[in-house]
């Protein structure tokens, strides 16, 4: 049973707070606590309590342990990400491989170089690095110089690019394949070829960054349906383009003035100046738009353009951005994605030829059923299947997206498969000569590793022979 007043309170004098307040001033039935001009009493220790002896005497006090929070220096903002994204392209401890040649403009297109390992010249390395073609998950840092194996698929892809450029057509191609098979490396090789041949390369290294609501976005006025620009990403992309394509951009000039830009860009200004006009994120999108219109201008003589993107399935679904009415924005309503899709679907062509390449990803890829079925259909079509034999959509599945299917209606699909055994041998010899594979590379070893790697999946081959000490 609880007493109305606790025993300790009995010792005190009854509170007089209410009596102090003038009764006439407060409402008679108010539930609000009375506060106001009540003179605060100084807290004096109650002598009565001490006499009675409640809770007096020795007390147990437990001291809190002082935790030292200052354990080392916390990484600076962005430092962790920089470490995560760090790309190491050379290893001084690795042995130089004597037979290694630098890649030149013709190498990748010639069938003779299929199955050979070629190293990237340092200028090309810088260009590729600027456009983020290297990925941290690839093992470039094991060897003295970054080098790639030229595969038959590479030669095939590069030849097609060259053909389309010479015919002033746009190659529209999607690179697919199973996990770790070398799809991104295929893109890298295509870009290497483009850089070496004086193309202009625009590369979106990770499509995820465009759609996962990590960069700022804004409506583009006077667009129907509403499109959204991503100014911060535009600035980043422009800087990458500038750094990677500096030489080419300096040579070609604008053919139209761009009155929408705040800077005065007269006709016959080098494109490099145009690109340099973007200093801040604020004006980056108009500058990119101007650059794009210059590159796709049918009246100008432009070098071929390569527009590539890694992680296609990210842009083939709803993005994570919200419209002003808080509805999800379809990825195809983002201006960058729209540009890419216009070229990929064939609605927009590069006047002087070029290529648009997209590669699917298998490690970080949301499911896009429409993309999967479309690519399967295109593959079947290329294999010569009749229209009624094509893979069919599931009639009762609701997750299909017509916009995605419209984009992928007529693209070419190239499936990257595992290496052949001679190719595997070639790359393993390179590993062994670099001192990274402590084994004699004979047919037996090659066959063993090739089989372990799921019939020559390149990434698995690395895991089986290079990364044996790494814990996955």
């Amino acid at each position: 049973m609880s007493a109305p007043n606790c025993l300790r309170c009995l010792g005190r004098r009854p509170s007089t707070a209410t009596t102090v307040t003038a009764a006439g001033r407060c409402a008679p039935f108010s539930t609000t606590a009375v506060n106001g001009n009540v003179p605060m009493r100084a807290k004096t220790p109650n002598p009565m309590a001490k006499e009675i002896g409640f809770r007096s005497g020795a007390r147990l006090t437990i001291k809190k342990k002082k935790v030292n929070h200052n354990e080392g220096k916390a990484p600076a903002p962005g430092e962790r990400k920089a470490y995560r994204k760090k790309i190491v392209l050379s290893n001084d401890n690795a042995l130089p491989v004597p037979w290694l040649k630098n890649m030149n403009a013709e190498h990748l297109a010639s069938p003779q170089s299929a199955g050979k390992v070629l190293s990237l010249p340092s200028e090309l390395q810088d260009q590729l690095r600027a456009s983020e073609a290297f990925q941290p998950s690839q093992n470039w840092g094991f060897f003295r110089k970054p080098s790639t194996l030229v595969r038959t698929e590479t030669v095939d892809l590069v030849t097609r690019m060259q053909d389309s450029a010479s015919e002033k057509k746009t190659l529209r191609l999607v690179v697919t394949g199973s996990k770790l098979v070398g799809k991104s490396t295929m893109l890298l090789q295509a870009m290497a070829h483009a850089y070496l041949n004086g193309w202009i390369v625009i590369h979106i290294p990770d499509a995820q960054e465009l759609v996962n609501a990590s960069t700022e976005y804004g409506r583009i006025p006077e667009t129907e349906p509403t499109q959204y620009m991503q100014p911060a990403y535009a600035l980043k992309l422009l800087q990458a383009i500038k750094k990677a394509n500096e030489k080419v951009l300096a040579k070609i000039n604008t053919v139209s003035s761009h009155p929408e830009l705040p800077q005065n860009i007269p006709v016959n200004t080098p494109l490099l100046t145009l690109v340099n006009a973007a200093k801040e994120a604020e004006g980056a999108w108009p500058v990119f738009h101007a650059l794009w219109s210059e590159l796709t201008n049918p009246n100008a003589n432009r070098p071929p353009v390569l527009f590539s993107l890694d992680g296609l399935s990210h842009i083939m679904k709803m993005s994570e951005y919200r419209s002003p009415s808080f509805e999800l924005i379809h990825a195809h309503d983002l201006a960058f994605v729209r540009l890419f899709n216009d070229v990929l679907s064939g609605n927009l062509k590069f006047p002087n030829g070029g290529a648009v390449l997209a590669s699917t990803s298998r490690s970080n890829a949301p499911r896009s059923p429409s993309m999967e079925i479309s690519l399967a259909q295109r593959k079947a079509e290329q294999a010569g299947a009749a229209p009624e034999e094509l893979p069919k959509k599931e009639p009762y599945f609701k997750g299909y997206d017509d916009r995605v299917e419209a984009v992928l209606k007529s693209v070419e699909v190239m499936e990257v498969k595992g290496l052949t055994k001679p190719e595997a041998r070639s790359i393993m010899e390179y590993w062994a000569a670099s001192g990274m594979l402590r084994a004699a590379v004979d047919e037996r070893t090659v066959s063993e590793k090739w089989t372990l790697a799921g019939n020559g999946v390149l990434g698995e081959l690395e895991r089986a022979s290079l990364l044996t000490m790494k814990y996955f």
Partner: protein
Amino acid sequence: MASTANSLRLCLRTSRQTSSAVSPLLRRALSTTTARCGMPGNTSYLTPTGVTKSEIPFYNQTFQDPSEYLQTVLKDASASPRDKQRAQQMLKAWEEIPIDQKRELQQLTKDAQNEMVPLRRHMRTRPTQFWSAHEQDPDLITDEIGEDDFEEDDIMAGAHGKLEEHREYREYARIAVWEMPLLANFAKKFEPPAEGEVLRFRYTSYMGEFHPADRKVVVEFCPRDLDLTEAQQLKLCKLAGSRYNPEKETIKMSCERFEHQAQNKRYLGDLIAKMITTAKDPTDTFEDIPLDTRHYKKKKNQISFPKEWYMTPERKAELEAQRKRSLMIDTQKRARHELVDGVQMIEAGIAEMEPVEELVAVKRGKAPAARPLRR
């Protein structure tokens, strides 16, 4: 206590006989036997065939006291004069009894009768009872009462159990040796279903026991076996809905709606006939509705290796040639000193390196000139 009453009833059942002799008290006060009609002078109380129950005297008649009964005897034409005389005497004696005693007796009879009603009720074992709950276990060889009392004159109960078990084994062994081979006489040769036998029925039997599932009939058939066009087959599959198995391309239906197996089978037969008629109906071919196979989940772990992996003589020869080729490549490379060996490469690389003297840790600042460096 039902069990006590039950045992009592069973004991009394053995001596269940309706007395033919006329007694002053028609019914024993403590009888657990059901009241049955008694025809005076007739020893058989079973209803004779041809005699309807209404013709039997006293059928379904209860007497409250002896006088009632004695009076019916007196009125009865078939009773002998001697019986009637005795009845007369007894009636007279009854009337001399004081009224209190009569009432007491009547009350007692009534009470006893009421008590006995549930015991007298005839217990019928229901044939349709599923688990046969009231059936006694004939295999139980001990009632567990006093079984642990050992009187030094027998083997232990456990040993008895073991012996019984052994007997049982032997019994089944005898059956296996002597009787089971005779089953071969009943064997029928398997005949694959004929052209017209497209329906495959499955029945369930629980070896004569009653089971709620024994009425179930399952039928399975392949629409392709029926005499239908492609479009009609497809319509039939669509009609079957989730009963269609797209992997086996069969339709499987079951019925346990009716009480008997034959009824269920008839229902299924009728249903299939109706489905086929509907499938043949050209007014609506269901072309606009795609075949729905969402109900079907493909079984996992169905590993099927590609055909090329089968070890055929050609494949063996191909592999052999491949091995020879690779061996040749290796030998050639070795002869030309082109075979890359990782270990050798590393050793050669280390040998090529300029020797670097071992680094020594030295204190910063001026080194004391006199003293040698501390190693």
